[in-house]
Every structure is written in structure tokens, then in C-alpha cells.
């Protein structure tokens, strides 16, 4: 049997963004790329593959691809697919082997994963059929407050008196925010209330797999400083965030290509 091609690639096709990582033989990142997933999983997977191969100066045939994320099964050129739960766990363990609890908040899901000493997940909990506690929640609220998603976090951090916002449902929270605007609450207080609600939702998820420091955060939402601030307060511990928190799933997938 011929040996597998040597260049490891991980593709993480998430609900909102698709990420790709191509590794050096020493497991450091040679190149990475992120784009919106869009309507076609295979189109975005192919486009990322093209970018990665161009940047690394290699051909597709030389790569061993592992796919993860919600679109993982649709990446037909992947050698195999592995869930994002396992991949995030492996990716984060590679970067910081001390992390025992990982909180990953993406566009449409949030996960709490307890990572074992071997880097494999020991237990996990995902949000169910509800977008409160995910990136979508913040997207909706930013739109209502008429600020960009990037501005929402910094705005919230200006608040000294967060508004009370329900955390049970994105749709109802949206009408609640509109109500707060009507009652004259300051935009920064409403924004802070939104992040507080989100953090409390994620905390209850994390509690189900036990909050054990040190705690890592990944996923697009972890880039939001107000989310990290309120989550850290809610779970009463400091958070560790990798340099590229959106890429740990793809990194974990690429690392699996070595196995």
C-alpha cells in the first residue's frame, strides 16, 4: 500500500465561516484561510483548498485532508471526517495542554468540552435547537442596536450599568432590546446586557460538563472582548484564548491527518 501524501490539511466547514489550515511537518501552521461558508459547502471547501495549496506551493494530490464542522460530510475529497468536538479538543490541547474545559462559541452553536489529559474530549455539551448563546444572538442584537458586529463588544465595555436582558430566546430578547431602547436605556448598557445574557447562557452549558480551570475559549465569538469579560466574571475564572481562536477546529483536523 502506498504511503499517504505527506501534507496535512484540516478543513472546518462551520455554519457561518469555513476555515482551512495547512501544516508543516513539524506541526506548525504553514498557511491558513477563512471565508464565509455561503450556500455551497463543496464550493467553499474547494476554494479554501485552492488558496491553501497556492500559498504553500503544493498540489492537492500531495495533501491529506481531514474535514470537520457541520459541512464535514459534504467534503468529498477529504480522507475522513471527524466532529468539531474532537477536532477543537485536539487543536486546543496542541496549543495549551493544560486546558481542561474549552468553551467554543461559533456562528450557530456553542459547545462546552471537557478535554482529557490525552487531548481527547471526555464529555461535552452543545446548545440544542436554540440560537441564544451563539454568534447569531450577537448578530441579531447588533442589527437592532444599529452597530456593526465588531463595534458591539467595545460598546458594551463602556457600560457601568448593564440592562437586564432575558437569555432564553433570541427572538424574544430582540423584542426586549427594542423595549429597552424605547425606555431610554443607553446603547452601551443594552449592549452590555446582551453580552451578560449570552455569557449566562454559555455558563449554564459549561456547568453541565463542570467548570474546571484553566478554561479556554475559541470560536469567532471569543474575539469579542465584552463576551470574554462577562463570561470570565460569570464563571469566575480567567480565560485563555489562542492567537487564532477561529482556527482550532481546522488545526485539530490537520493534526489528525498525522495519525
Amino acid at each position: 500500500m502506498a504511503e499517504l501524501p505527506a501534507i496535512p490539511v484540516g478543513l472546518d466547514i462551520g455554519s457561518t465561516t469555513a476555515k482551512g489550515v495547512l501544516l508543516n511537518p513539524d506541526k506548525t501552521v504553514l498557511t491558513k484561510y477563512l471565508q464565509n461558508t455561503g450556500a455551497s459547502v463543496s464550493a467553499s471547501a474547494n476554494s479554501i483548498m485552492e488558496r491553501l495549496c497556492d500559498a504553500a506551493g503544493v498540489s492537492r494530490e500531495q495533501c491529506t485532508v481531514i474535514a470537520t464542522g457541520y459541512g464535514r460530510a459534504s467534503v468529498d475529497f477529504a480522507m475522513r471526517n471527524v466532529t468539531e468536538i474532537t477536532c477543537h479538543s485536539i487543536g486546543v490541547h496542541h496549543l495549551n495542554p493544560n486546558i481542561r474545559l474549552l468553551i467554543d462559541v461559533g456562528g450557530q452553536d456553542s459547545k462546552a468540552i471537557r478535554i482529557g489529559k490525552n487531548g481527547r474530549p471526555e464529555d461535552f455539551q452543545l446548545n440544542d435547537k436554540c440560537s441564544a448563546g451563539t454568534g447569531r444572538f450577537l448578530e441579531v442584537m447588533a442589527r437592532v442596536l444599529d452597530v456593526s458586529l465588531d463595534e458591539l463588544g467595545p460598546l458594551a465595555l463602556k457600560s457601568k450599568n448593564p440592562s437586564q436582558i432575558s437569555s432564553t430566546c433570541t427572538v424574544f430578547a430582540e423584542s426586549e432590546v427594542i423595549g429597552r431602547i424605547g425606555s431610554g436605556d443607553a446603547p452601551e448598557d443594552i449592549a452590555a446586557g446582551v453580552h451578560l445574557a449570552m455569557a449566562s447562557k454559555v455558563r449554564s452549558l459549561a456547568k453541565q460538563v463542570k467548570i474546571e480551570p484553566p478554561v479556554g475559549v475559541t470560536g469567532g465569538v471569543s474575539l469579542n472582548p465584552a463576551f470574554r469579560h462577562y463570561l470570565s466574571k460569570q464563571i469566575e475564572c480567567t480565560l485563555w484564548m489562542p492567537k487564532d481562536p477561529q482556527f482550532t477546529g481546522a488545526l485539530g483536523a490537520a493534526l489528525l491527518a498525522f495519525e
Partner: protein
Amino acid sequence: MTEEREKTEKPYRKLETQAFLQQIAFRQGFEALEASENGRLTWVTSGFPVEIPIAMDVGVVYPEQAGAIIGAQKIGPEVCGYAEDLGYSQELCSYARASIGSTQRPDDVPMGSLPPPQALLACNNICGTVLRWYDAISEMTGAPVFLLDTPPVEGEQLPHHRAYVRNGLNELVGFLSSTFNTTLEDDKFRNVADLSSNAINLWTNSLEACKNKPSPLNCADRFLTMAPVVSSRGTEHCVEFYEMLFAEVEDRVKQNIGAVGDEKIRLLWDNIPPWFILRFFNQLAARGVSFPADTYTHAWSGAIEGVDVSSILDEMVGMYSNVYLNKGLNAKIDKMCQLIKDYDLDGFIMFSVRSCKRYSLGQMASKEIVTERTGVPGVIIEGDMVDSRLFNEAQIQTRVDALLEMFV
């Protein structure tokens, strides 16, 4: 093409005995129709002491079983929708909605609507919804409801609870006597109790054979072959069916044949299955996953040993009060841990059934405790047994895949 298909071995082995289920279902359907035409048909809940009406020559059919059939036909959302059109909430149990929907529009549900009842027999040992559900059916059909009230059992059943349930059984006999002009006789009751005990015994033996590796039965096998022990306990054809099933199971064990072609991972299933997607289990079978045990089909145990009406009724108090769903969370956790140990299981899947609050309540807490006690991982997936609108396949796939990846 056909030849090629035959050559490809399926990842799971279908039971030969399963072929007889259709005959039993046909026979039951015919008998129910006849009983209804003769003014002697009752609708009963799955945990009802059915030996009593059977021994009194009163016909029985099961709306819950009809719900499962509606689910398996993949018409759950449509039939539940008929009940929703009447104003019932989507939050109501989908067995109840399927039952109310098919009673409202029987012509639209040829396989799943039941013949008109002359009485409705509800026992709340399986859930509290049955009372309101049977009340609704009573309003629609004019049949009276008899409620056998079995207070939940936490630890040992208290003497005054026993006396209360015993009194309920007396009242049941009185209700059936006056409604159907019949009596409960020692000999007939003893005979029905014997047949019921024999069937339960054979069923229990078949379940316990799944301790073998590989397991001779998978989840879907048990969910399908449990039908007669639910609906025909106390009849001869039920005993005959389980004799055949147990013979086939023993044969598989002797030949070291498993239900799943290449059994690698053994899991426990908790709760009612999603009837509309039983292929879920077969898809996992293709990956070497078998389910040698589940909490749902292990609901019956014990033989009835009493010699006359009074002593048999005494025994039935404990038997029907101590069913799995009528006990506290601790008993459920103990049972799951015991099954994991006895059947040497690697992990568990808890199905959080939107419809069945009684079954699903406390799963989050019990998952943690079961893992702590047994050391095996588990996962909770969410959905419904009949209403496929509540079943998100992609979400479930990710959770189950992640669980399986833990065994690598």
C-alpha cells in the same frame, strides 16, 4: 444488479421471527374490530393490568402502539396536525396527538386509527397525560373512562399506597363487570396470568441473552418484537411468538451470531425510540455499534404466582406500581448503571423525547451520575418518538459521532 445487492452483506441481521409480527398485528386488528362491533372493546394504556380485561373477555387495543405505527409510517406530523387543528398544543405528547388526530379523522389514517371503544382504561403508572388524553377521547367517542391511579413509588411502596391501588383494582373489576356484564373467575384469571407470566419470562430470557458478545438482538429488533408483550400479554399466540423469538435468539447465541455484523461498540439506549427513523440504529450498525440493552423494553419482569382472583390482584399491585416510569430518578439511575454493568456496555445514548416528559425529566442530572458511577461516557440527543418535525438529524449526528470518537 439484484444479484450484486444480495451478495453485499448487510451490517445488521434481520430476525426471521419478525415476519410473524405482521400476522399478530393483523389478528389483533381483526379481533379488535370484532370486539368493537360486539360492544366489548376497550382502549388501554401500555402499563395497564391488561390481564384483568382479557380474563373478563373484554377486547383491548393500545393507542400508544397505534401512535408508534403512525410514527413508523412517517405520517406523524400530518396526523398530529389533525389534533393541532382542533386546538391541541404542539407541546402535547405526540402519542396523544396522534391518537386524538386519528380519532378525529379515522378515514385519513387507515393504518393507525382504532375501532370505536366502549370504554377507556387508563393507568397513570406511565404518565399523567393519559388521564386528560383519555378524557378527550371520551368526549369524542362517548366511551367512559376508568382511571387506575398508581401513586409514584419512591423506594419501598408504602402499605397505604398498596391498599389504595388494591382498592383501585377492585373498582376496575366492578367497572368492567357492570359495563360489559361479565365476571372475573379464578380459573380463567389464573390461566391468563400463566400465559402472561410465560410470555414475560420468554421475553426476559431473550433480553438477557443480549449479555452475550456479540449481542443476538439490537435495539430496533427489541422495539419491534416487544409489541406482543405490550399488547397481547395473557394470550396463547403471544406465548407462541416469544417461544419462536427465544429459539431464534438461542440459536444465534449458540452459533455466535450477532444482530450487528461486526460488533465493536456496545451502547445503552434510554427512552422510547424515534419510530419514524429506526434506520438510525441500522446506520450505526454499519459502524459496528450495537445496543444490547435499553431502558424501554426492560419494563416487564416477574411471574404472577397467585392462586385465585384475590391473591393475583394482590400481586398486581406491586407489579403495576413499580414500573420503571412510576419510580423516582434514583431507581432509574440504578437501573441504567445495572444494565451498563450486566451487559458490559461502553457508553450510553439518552434520547430526550420532547413528548414524554415523565421519561425525559432528569436526564441531564442522571447522565452525569451514571458516568460518575460506571465510568462510561454518554450523550443526550433531542427529538420525538412520532413527530419528526422535532428531530434534527444533523445535530444528532454530530453528538453521536462525537461520542463514538471517544472510543477510538
